[in-house]
């Protein structure tokens, strides 16, 4: 990584769920780890998320969802990112996601899934190690 | 805590409240019951206020933690300094299986071991004895010889952890095996820490696992006191146990009264032997039950400390503050667990454990949810241990000392418990002391009465037990249960046969003879037990010698 390079991360909450504590705590932790976090707020559609990721030229997209709509929304986000030529972007997810959904999510390219109780340090380390 | 004027004001406001608020309210909506009682059937008032503790003196009745009368705890910093020892009672099948469980528990954050022995061991029989038929490994681990003890503690650092052993009739012999096993590994006995239950009086009262008549049994107990005070300064030579008295149906007050009475009897016996109180009293420890009734239990522990401090200091003239300390282990109440909807037991255990902690326990065993069905599975044991850890680390109750002190209800209950304990002391005294009372069946009768009253209350649904007489569900329990190694008993018999075949039988005969000789005389038996177990004399062989020397005990029939 060159000297001036900063890791840019988009933190988004797809779907209608309004519990943003986790998303905000992660955003702050990434900020405190020296990253630039674009926080887009609640109720983001997959289209909004993909377009924001494009305009902001982020290295990473972090998705937070607690309502259980992930199996509907995540595939759409992944497809849109690919359509826009951003398949190389690192995507991770957090929230209430049952273990049995994890293989399918990884299959579609979501690199890491963090359940409740994950230390934010784990996420920071993961991003540092995996962002080229 | 309040001056006269305030007390008077509270009194008059209380009367006004009763007249203006309560009366009308009761007419509109009566209370759920006419009388509210604790689990021990002690009446509970509607409201406790400063009026209920007005004759009470803070400095006299509570004082400060780590100071007489220790109502607020025996250590100056309590759990801010060190948490209680999380000690899960474990033992089943062979020494190998139990050894694996010990390692599992230590690996999950347990901080002390607690050994359960099987029925033959508790009665002083070897696994291959005819009396042991069908009992092997059922409620604990079988230990017939030093070889079993060595296997049991294989790979466990006995110089770093403390070990508690629930053994009474043959306690001295099992203790001798532990000492011998440690010494064989190069750990000197003076470095060993732990507890043997060694409480024979409660066996006569409640648990009934006695071997010999009371007098020689008491002599064995005092032998361990004497030996321990000389050679194993870190060992608790007795754990005076209310737990089993409670499980046999006692009320909280009875549990406390009978246990403390037993404790005082041991002290007296040791003094009669000529031991100095401050030589052995600091190594006495207690073992209580944590039952359902939350505040009653907390009050019980606090009253216990106050009474014991007073008795050792005032009655026996102990000078060392440590002799005044009542240190205790707690186990949540096995008898409160239900086979129906076993997961409900996690909740019961959590609340009971909380009571123990708020009462200032020094160590704690939390029951596993499946104990009413089978021996606990690893998962069930882990949840039980996690229960303690959550209380210790997440609930915040460990951050200040004796957090409930001052509660009008709790202080009133503590005082009341104390008063009722003294009433029992008086009765026991009148009967001529504990052993006389045992022989006359006093305790047994008291327990039988309490147990049947409790049962009656449940059947009449004056008491609700969730899943038993209310909120019953159809479905059978579906939790995974522990399966023991079916080959276990054969393995144990093989090992015993090998021990008998490979040992120096001459040395066995010689050491057993020494035990017999000592038993018939006045000598302390402990050194002879250690010699015998080192020669691989078995538990059964040693006990047989004692049975011949001491005779057997038959309980008086009590109805």
């Amino acid at each position, binding site marked *: 990584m060159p000297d*001036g390079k*900063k890791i840019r991360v988009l933190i988004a909450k797809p779907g209608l769920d309004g519990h943003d504590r986790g998303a905000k705590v992660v955003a702050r932790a990434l*900020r405190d780890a020296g990253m630039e*976090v674009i926080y887009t*707020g609640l109720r*983001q559609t997959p289209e909004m998320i993909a377009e924001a990721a494009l305009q902001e030229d982020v290295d990473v997209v972090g998705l937070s969802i607690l309502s259980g709509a992930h199996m509907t929304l995540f595939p759409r986000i992944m497809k849109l990112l690919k359509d826009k030529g951003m398949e190389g972007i690192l995507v991770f997810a957090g929230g209430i996601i049952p273990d049995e959904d994890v293989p399918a999510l990884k299959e579609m390219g979501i690199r890491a899934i963090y359940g409740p109780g994950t230390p934010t340090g784990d996420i920071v380390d993961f991003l540092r190690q995996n962002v080229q | 805590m309040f001056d006269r004027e305030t007390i008077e004001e509270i009194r008059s406001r209380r009367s006004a409240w009763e007249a203006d608020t309560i009366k009308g309210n009761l007419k509109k909506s009566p209370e759920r019951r006419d009388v509210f009682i604790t689990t021990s059937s002690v009446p509970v008032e509607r409201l406790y206020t400063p009026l209920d503790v007005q004759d009470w003196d803070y400095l006299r009745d509570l004082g400060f933690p780590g100071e007489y009368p220790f109502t607020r705890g025996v250590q100056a910093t309590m759990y801010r300094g060190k948490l209680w020892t999380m000690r899960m009672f474990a033992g089943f099948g062979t020494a190998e299986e139990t050894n694996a469980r010990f390692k599992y528990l230590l690996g999950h954050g347990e901080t002390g071991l607690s050994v359960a022995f099987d029925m033959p061991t508790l009665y002083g029989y070897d696994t291959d004895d005819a009396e042991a038929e069908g009992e092997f490994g059922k409620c604990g681990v079988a230990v017939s010889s030093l070889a079993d003890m060595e296997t049991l503690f294989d790979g466990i650092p006995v110089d770093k952890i403390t070990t508690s052993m629930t053994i009474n009739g043959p306690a001295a012999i099992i203790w001798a095996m532990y000492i011998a096993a440690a010494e064989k590994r190069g750990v000197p006995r003076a470095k060993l820490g732990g507890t043997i239950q060694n409480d024979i009086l409660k066996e006569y009262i409640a648990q009934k696992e006695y071997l010999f008549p009371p007098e020689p049994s008491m002599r064995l107990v005092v032998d361990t006191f004497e030996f321990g005070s000389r050679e194993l300064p870190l060992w608790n030579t007795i754990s005076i146990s209310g737990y089993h008295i409670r499980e046999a149906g006692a009320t909280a007050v009875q549990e406390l009264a009978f246990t403390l009475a037993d404790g005082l009897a041991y002290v007296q016996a040791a003094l009669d032997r000529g031991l100095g109180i401050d030589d052995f009293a600091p190594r006495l420890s207690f073992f209580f039950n944590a039952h359902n009734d939350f505040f009653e239990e907390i009050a019980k522990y606090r009253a216990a400390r106050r009474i014991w401090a007073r008795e050792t200091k005032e009655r026996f003239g102990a000078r060392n503050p440590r002799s005044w300390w009542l240190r205790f282990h707690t186990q949540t109440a096995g008898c409160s667990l239900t086979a129906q909807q076993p997961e409900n037991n996690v909740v019961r255990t959590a609340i009971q454990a909380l009571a123990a902690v708020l009462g200032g326990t020094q160590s704690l065993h939390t029951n596993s949810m499946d104990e009413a069905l089978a021996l606990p599975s690893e998962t069930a044991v882990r949840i039980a241990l996690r229960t303690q850890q959550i209380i210790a680390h997440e609930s915040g109750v460990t951050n200040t000392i004796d957090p409930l002190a001052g509660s009008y209800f709790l202080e009133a209950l503590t005082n009341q418990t104390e008063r009722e304990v003294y009433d029992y002391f008086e009765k026991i005294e009148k009967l001529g002391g504990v052993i006389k009372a045992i022989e006359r069946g006093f305790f047994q009768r008291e327990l039988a009465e309490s147990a049947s009253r409790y049962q009656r209350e449940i059947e009449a649904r004056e008491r609700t037990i969730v899943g038993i007489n209310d909120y019953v569900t159809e479905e059978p329990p579906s939790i995974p249960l522990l399966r023991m190694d079916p080959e276990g008993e054969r393995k144990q018999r093989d090992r015993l046969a090998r021990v008998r075949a490979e040992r120096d039988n001459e040395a066995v005969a010689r050491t057993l003879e020494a035990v017999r000789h000592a038993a018939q005389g006045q000598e302390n038996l402990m050194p002879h037990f250690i010699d015998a177990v080192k020669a691989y004399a078995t538990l059964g062989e040693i006990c047989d010698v004692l049975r011949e020397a001491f005779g057997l005990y038959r309980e008086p029939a009590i109805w």
Partner: protein
Amino acid sequence: MEVATEERLNKEGRRAGPVLAKPRYITQNQSIGAKNSSQAIISPSLAESRELADRVLAGDRRGVARLISLIEDDSPEACPALALLYPHTGRAHVVGVTGAPGTGKSTLVGQLARESRQRGLTVGIVAVDPSSPFSGGAILGDRIRMQELTGDPGVFIRSMATRGSLGGLSYATGDAIKVLDAFGKDIIYVETVGVGQDEVEIAATAHTTIVVQAPGLGDDIQAIKAGILEIADILVVNKADQEGAERTVAALQLMLELNHQPQGWQPPIIKTVAVEGKGIEALSHEISRHRDYLQVSGRASLLRQHLAEEELWNIIRKTLVARIMDKLDRAELDQLIHDIADRRLDPHTAANKLIAQILE
């Protein structure tokens, strides 16, 4: 207007200080700064730069996003690409929006962008938030207020962190604006950090500067005293439905009267309720009016000259410092600092000595 522009220049002239006062940032970028300036022409990545520039000109949004990142990261490809794009810039109207936190800048920019879209203009938005001085990281949250614009292909929003710059923008903001300009955006809104301290940099970047105030954010007069008023081409009192709005308007009016210039542009005061879209049309109208004024009065070309000079000096300062840092012997520097601190040497002599050494 001339006077006002002159003032800007002076202010900017004084602003050389802070750049030097941030040795950490410079140190961090020294090698790259050097590369940027000296190797721009012979960069092996010229082909890449050309491709990027072509993508921007062809309207590829991903190319735009990428190039702005390279500028922010001081990557070697950035300068040649910017050089290629430069002839295509200069068409967009750049509107700066500044004001204290909580005045509603993002919402206002979002509404202005929407209004511009309704008038058929394409819109670029650059929203700047502060980097943490401790970690160097940042949380950029301005998009929240502009959510519905995200789906509009005629709008391009870019969030930026200040990355050590103190003037309310980041060092890369000016170049990011150029990229959006070359990309073909008709109007570019630039939202500053809004820490309320030192927001004048925007005036050296934008054609029209809007200063936003809101009632109830503490002492109104204090904010005005901070000098921010003097850079305003348009004053906005947002949240005008709240208690105290009239008092804020009156205070601003008073300040304007005290500062009255006999001729030229008179900054209007516009009341808005951005969350409800109220007053946006009027504000938009004032922006157009100011743009026309710049054209008609001939101020526009003057302003362009000033902005060009400003930018040139900024680059020179930045590059020079970087090169000086590059050449300095650290041990020697430490010794000098030590001497100055111990009063064995005065700082002027020391600086002159160093510069002379390097210019040789």
